[in-house]
Every structure is written in structure tokens, then in C-alpha cells.
């Protein structure tokens, strides 16, 4: 049976996301997809959904949602004090929804982005192989008041609730972000290399799904490069000396030197950082993506 989530209040910035678009980078289309894949996988696992079922990505100030029919949900990632009707609910557990229930969010406790999974995923439009919202590709860019999002209602008891799965939330708060050297790392002077290895950096207020700037200014003498490929997790050094961490909605090519490249876990961790948070770069324990940052 078709059912809908009605957006009573949109909150700050929420979108529908899955793993993103594959096969369209060559046309300049960003990969997109959830900023934090760990949280997407966790929320879908709890509901025994397909790993890539579409979820709602909620940034800091959550929306207020009304469900038209029974289903189940699970929330993972950042803790934004979710409430079902008037009762506080926890992250990382199955929550039963009845017709007319209202889900809202309160004070952000920790993390930047929270993920709302629903049984069998949101059934919004699929464009170029993905339901991930992106300007001009999908009809919507972010939640708006009055919008209605489709899902499949489900009364039946599909399974028993997981009792024993433990979710490691350490990644939400850790300051240590895993990186590999980027294509232009070796061109950096030694002083800058060791600065990148040892210093703490802070998340700038200038951050979104495309990129996260770091506040510190570095001395940069590197020339721009011939425009080349970039990926989510590529860290560029601008002529002005700023580090820019490219995220899921980043462009497919860029002309700034690519000094570092985040590990997959590192991207997920960055997705949970807020303006003012501090980070430090470190090499992953097993450098399977290449040499260590030594």
C-alpha cells in the first residue's frame, strides 16, 4: 500500500540519499549519495533493508514529519534528540510507526548529520540510477514544507528486533581522520608535509555537501595543476593556502593541487564534523590504498 511522509516543517537542510550515481562522472555529474555511509548502512541494517535503500539525511536541525500509515523506522548517525509524538526515542533501534505518528527532532547532541531509514526505503524518483537529491538532476533539492515522500506501508511483523547488534559510534566523535597522500603531496615542501601530519585543523563554517573548508591558512607556493580528476575525499590546497575537503557532491574535476585523499572511513567521519570541530590527519593502520603518510 502506498503511504506518505508529510513534511510539516522542513528543518535546516534535509535530503533523500542513497549510495549515489554511478557511471555519469564522465558527463560531469557528481557521484553524490549519503555523506556518511556508515550511518546509512547501520540504519538500513537495523531494518533489514537493502544496503542502498534510500534514507533521509538530516543536517543539525531536524524536520517534523507525519506518517500516513504504519511502518518501521531507524535513525543512525548524529544524535539530534528525535521524538516520536511526545516520547524521546533512541538512535540505532527499530521504532514502530502507527498511522498519524509525528516524528520530530530537538537539540543536536553530537555529530552533524542524522539518517532516517524507513522499512524498504523511501520511494522517491530515481534519476540516472539513483534517488539522491541534487540540483537540476532530481526534482527536489531539499525538504520543503508540505512535500510528501512515498514509502510502502507495512503492517506485518517481518522479523524480530535485533537485540545484540552493537554499533560503534566512536567514529562520530573521534578527531583522528584517516588520510593517504594525494597526487601532489610529494610536491609539498617538508615543512608543510609535517605541518599536515602534526597540526590540528578546524572545520570552517563554510561547509556543505560539496566541500568542507578548514579554517587554518597555510603557506602555499604550489602552482595550480592542469585540471585533473577529483573524488569525494580529495583535499585540495588553494592558492590562498586554504585546505578544502571535497565531499560527496563535489565536482568531478579540479585545478587545485590535491595534497591528501581521505580513506572511506575518513570521508564518513568528516561528514559528521561541525563548524568549530577540530581534526587531525593520520595514516590508516593498514595502508591498503597506498603508501603511508610518512
Amino acid at each position: 500500500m502506498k503511504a506518505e511522509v508529510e513534511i510539516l516543517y522542513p528543518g535546516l537542510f534535509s535530503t533523500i540519499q542513497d549510495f549515489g550515481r554511478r557511471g555519469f562522472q564522465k558527463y560531469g555529474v557528481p557521484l553524490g549519495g549519503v555523506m556518511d555511509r556508515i550511518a546509512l548502512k547501520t540504519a538500513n541494517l537495523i531494518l533489514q533493508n537493502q544496503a542502498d535503500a534510500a534514507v533521509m539525511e538530516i543536517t543539525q536541525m531536524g524536520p517534523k514529519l507525519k506518517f500516513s500509515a504504519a511502518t518501521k523506522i531507524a535513525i543512525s548517525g548524529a544524535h539530534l534528540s528525535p521524538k516520536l509524538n511526545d516520547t524521546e526515542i533512541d538512535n540505532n533501534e527499530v521504532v514502530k510507526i502507527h498511522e498519524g505518528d509525528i516524528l520530530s527532532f530537538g537539540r543536536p547532541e553530537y555529530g552533524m548529520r542524522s539518517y532516517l531509514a524507513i522499512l524498504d526505503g523511501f520511494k522517491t524518483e530515481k534519476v540516472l540510477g539513483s534517488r539522491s537529491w541534487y540540483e537540476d538532476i532530481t526534482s527536489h533539492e531539499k525538504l520543503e514544507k508540505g512535500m510528501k515522500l512515498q514509502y510502502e506501508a507495512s503492517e506485518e511483523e517481518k522479523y524480530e528486533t535485533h537485540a545484540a547488534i552493537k554499533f560503534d559510534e566512536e567514529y562520530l566523535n573521534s578527531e583522528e581522520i584517516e588520510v593517504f597522500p594525494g597526487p601532489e603531496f610529494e610536491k609539498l615542501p617538508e615543512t608543510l608535509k609535517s605541518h599536515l601530519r602534526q597540526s590540528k585543523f578546524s572545520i570552517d563554517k563554510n561547509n556543505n555537501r560539496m566541500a568542507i573548508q578548514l579554517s587554518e591558512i597555510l603557506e602555499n607556493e604550489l602552482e595550480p595543476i592542469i585540471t585533473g580528476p577529483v573524488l569525494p575525499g580529495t583535499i585540495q590546497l588553494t592558492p590562498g593556502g586554504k585546505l578544502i575537503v571535497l565531499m560527496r557532491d563535489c565536482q568531478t574535476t579540479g585545478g587545485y593541487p590535491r595534497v591528501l585523499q581521505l580513506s572511506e572511513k575518513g570521508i564518513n567521519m568528516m561528514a559528521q564534523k561541525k563548524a568549530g570541530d577540530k581534526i587531525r590527519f593520520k595514516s590508516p593502520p593498514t595502508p591498503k590504498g597506498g603508501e603511508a603518510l610518512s
Partner: protein
Amino acid sequence: MNDFPKITPMGERGILIEFEPEISEKLLGKLLFYKDKLEEFYDEVNVEVINTYNSLLISYMFSIENVYNEISAIKELFGEAKIGKTNNQQIFHLPVCYEEEFGWDLEYISKEKKLSKEEIVELHTKPFYTVFFTGFLPGFLYLGGLDEKLQISRKDQPRMKIEKGAVGIGENQTGIYPKSSPGGWQILGNCPVQFFDKNNDPPCEISAGDKVKFYSVSKEEFEEISEQISEGTFQLKKENYEG
């Protein structure tokens, strides 16, 4: 000894293959040839290969199990390959209206470069531009071949909004904004053609290795073409290119 191509991991889901740091058609031909080889070699479901001026990026859907095995396999593949001709290339003829309404910076370019507006249009419509790759925005073509006489620096203050279809120049590059966006290029006209349509397969008809040539149209013709495009009756003029 030649150190290129340089093959290195780019994070856990990418392998970057870098060639000589230059921008040339010869290198583009080589890149596209290797790109075809890689696409044949890989299961396209799990891997996407993109090219830029002097790099190929193999972008994997999942983390690479053993990156060094992967790199050896690519080296072997490249070692065996004898560079031949790449796929059929096409020339696309693109209408551009250079009239005042669209040519916001024609006046400025004319003063800076000491060229009349007619000369600017002539210099801009003359070359067969080479499409090196698509990037920056969905459907944005990186074109090579701009006449040196038209090379001009970007605006000091980028504009907050450049119209969809705007044709501009920034340093030695010329191109078309496929959608409205902030930008710093000097704008000399507008091209009504749709460069990216998510409902088409592929969504972008023009691809790396193709050529484009601009032709000047009047405001009336521009409007006529725009109407045909919105009705879906416009036929882009194209022909095979024998390089």
C-alpha cells in the same frame, strides 16, 4: 627514461593514471585509446573510467581489494596495447547569438584586444574546437583551440549569476555554461543548445574527442532555435570527423 604513465592509488576507490603534464590532441588521442582498453577490460558495472587533459581516473564502486595487483594488471594491459585509432569522432555545429543582449563583455573584449565585434565573432567561430572532457558542471565541455588573439583574463570579480547557455572566455579556454551558475569568464554570447538532458541516454551527446564549431545566429534565429529545442524538434547539425 620516460616516467609516464604514473599509476597510483587515489584513496581506496580510485586509481589515477597520469601522463605527461601537457594539453595536446596527441595526448588526448592516447588517453582515449587507453580509456577504451580499460573499459573493455573492466566490468563497467563496478568501474567508471574518466579522462581529463592528461589523466585517467578509474573510479571503483567498492574499495579495491588489492591495489597493487590492480596496478600490475593495468601496466600489463598498457604494455600489450599498440596505440591505434579511437572511436568515431563527430563535429557538432553549435549556434551562438553574439548580439548585445547576450554578449555582456563584447565591448570590454573589443577594447582590451583592439578588435571589432565582428572580428571577435569571426575569430571565435573559425576554429574546430576539440572537446577534451566534460567536468565542472553536468554537460560543461572543456574545449581546446581558442585563438590566441581572444585570450583574456577572467573578471576580477566573478558574477553571481551567469545565464544558462552563456558562451565565455577565461584565459586560453572557451566554453558554454550548461546551466546558470556563478562564474568569472568574459561572456560573449549565448548558445541555446541543451548540453545535458537527464532524460536522454546518454544524457550528453557530445563527448571527449569530438569537435565543436560555433556559428553566429541572429536574435530571431536564436529564438526560433530555442522554441524548436523546447518542442523537441531541433536537430543539432553534426557530421563525422575524419581527423
